[in-house]
């Protein structure tokens, strides 16, 4: 099995062939950043604050422009130039989230910006050495001990074990072949076992989801949990912005003086002006908005996508909600045991 002993050599090698993004620590908080020599890389911390969806679906993205000169308007294509890149250190939950996003952005009509990024990106996942109490990815069939991705890696005492899973992964492996040595892979098996042992102890690892299977869209509409949650939901966008699968966006125009830039940016179904249309808004109260957010992930999305939930159990909302409201509470309140 391929093994990397010197991690910085690995980073340098990847950065030499493609843009490399990886978790970087900044005052105790870890987020994906473009690698640069001397960066404070932190692949021990389990979860980045922002999810890995930024790689393919960035928070703001300029789409087109209108150049105004006097009375003339000229349309410009301002879509970003996408270069090949490597997303390193992605966890299993985030890796699954890309599949969720694909179901939205790669179906007709295909989102060309997303598609370009998806094609350009090689995902290198990292097994979750130390799962946390907020994790519940196993409920969605994710294997944190052996996450999916173009390449899967395990960080062990010996070094980083490396396993290419796809053509893209193989290509990357070949491009940086010099950094690898061979390892016996025993440490990987040990780690997998250790992770499984921890997962058995995780409080949220075994949620009862049976009540969500095959239900009709309106099944839970009148459920009291929506009012309960909305009482103290602050209507901020934290859950949606740290969520790896939230995919809603708004398209807006920015007046730059000499023209207009049309861009898209993340939107949040927690916001009062979400889906506001000319006639008004069809969801006007916070309980309706909360219902939309959770049922979208738990009922509407699976109904349309062969049962795939719109949640990957990363637990970011569990950790970050200012009011400690989250999808686990909703799953339980809806009738799970």
């Amino acid at each position: 099995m391929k093994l990397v002993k010197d991690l910085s050599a690995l980073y340098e090698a990847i950065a030499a062939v493609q843009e490399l993004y990886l978790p970087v620590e900044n005052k105790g908080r870890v987020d994906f950043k473009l690698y640069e020599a001397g960066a404070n890389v932190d692949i021990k911390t389990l979860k980045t604050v922002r999810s890995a969806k930024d790689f393919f679906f960035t928070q703001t993205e300029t789409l087109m422009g209108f150049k105004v000169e006097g009375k003339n308007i000229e349309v410009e294509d301002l879509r970003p130039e996408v270069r090949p890149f490597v997303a390193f250190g992605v966890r299993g939950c985030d890796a699954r989230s890309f599949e969720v996003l694909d179901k939205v952005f790669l179906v007709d009509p295909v989102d060309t910006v997303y598609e370009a990024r998806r094609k350009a990106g090689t995902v290198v996942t990292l097994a979750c050495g130390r799962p946390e109490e907020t994790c519940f990815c196993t409920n969605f069939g994710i294997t944190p001990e052996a996450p999916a991705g173009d390449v899967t890696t395990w960080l062990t005492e010996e070094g980083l074990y490396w396993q290419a899973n796809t053509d893209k992964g193989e290509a990357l492996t070949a491009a940086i072949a010099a950094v690898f040595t061979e390892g016996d892979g025993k440490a990987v098996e040990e780690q997998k076992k250790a992770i499984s042992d921890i997962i058995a102890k995780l409080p949220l690892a075994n949620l009862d989801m049976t009540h969500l299977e095959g239900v009709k869209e309106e099944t839970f509409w009148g459920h009291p949990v929506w009012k309960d949650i909305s009482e103290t939901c602050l209507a901020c966008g934290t859950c949606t912005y740290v969520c790896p699968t939230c995919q809603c966006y708004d398209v807006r125009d920015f007046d730059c003086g000499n023209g207009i830039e049309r861009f898209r940016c993340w939107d949040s179904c927690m916001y009062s002006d979400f889906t506001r249309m000319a006639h008004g808004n069809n969801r006007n109260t916070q309980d309706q908005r909360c219902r939309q957010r959770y049922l979208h992930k738990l009922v509407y999305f699976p109904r349309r996508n062969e049962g795939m939930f719109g949640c990957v159990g990363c637990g970011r909302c569990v950790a970050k909600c200012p009011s400690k409201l989250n999808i686990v509470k909703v799953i339980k309140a809806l009738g799970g045991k």
Partner: protein
Amino acid sequence: MQIEKKPLIVAFCCNWCSYAGADLAGTNRLNYPANVKIIRVPCSCRVNPLFILKAFQRGADGVIICGCHPGDCHYTTGNYYARRRITLLFSMLSYLGIEKNRVRLEWVSAAEGAKFAATMQSFAEEIAELGECKRLEDLRCKK
């Protein structure tokens, strides 16, 4: 027509004192840099911090607010409120590391044409020294 881009200065002037002071500077043919552009507001208390930030966003390199001398406000008290608001805003900008000389508040009466011109001259020089405002720029507006 296109002249090299000089630092751009936006001056908010109250209608009753400073705008009249600017007019007097003109009447007396007192020269000050053309990159100073004046916006007329009823009173210095009409200047919203948003306007100041917006000016920087749009590419201004310096913003100056001019009002009646304290005690002489046409609306009696407007400039006193303006003074507090603007002091706090300036302090905050400096706290965020925005060069503190990029913003200024001056009291210019309708009789102080010479002071108006001299103030604009000195402010323009100060801004020229600081150069382009990079710390509050929005590149979308600079294309």
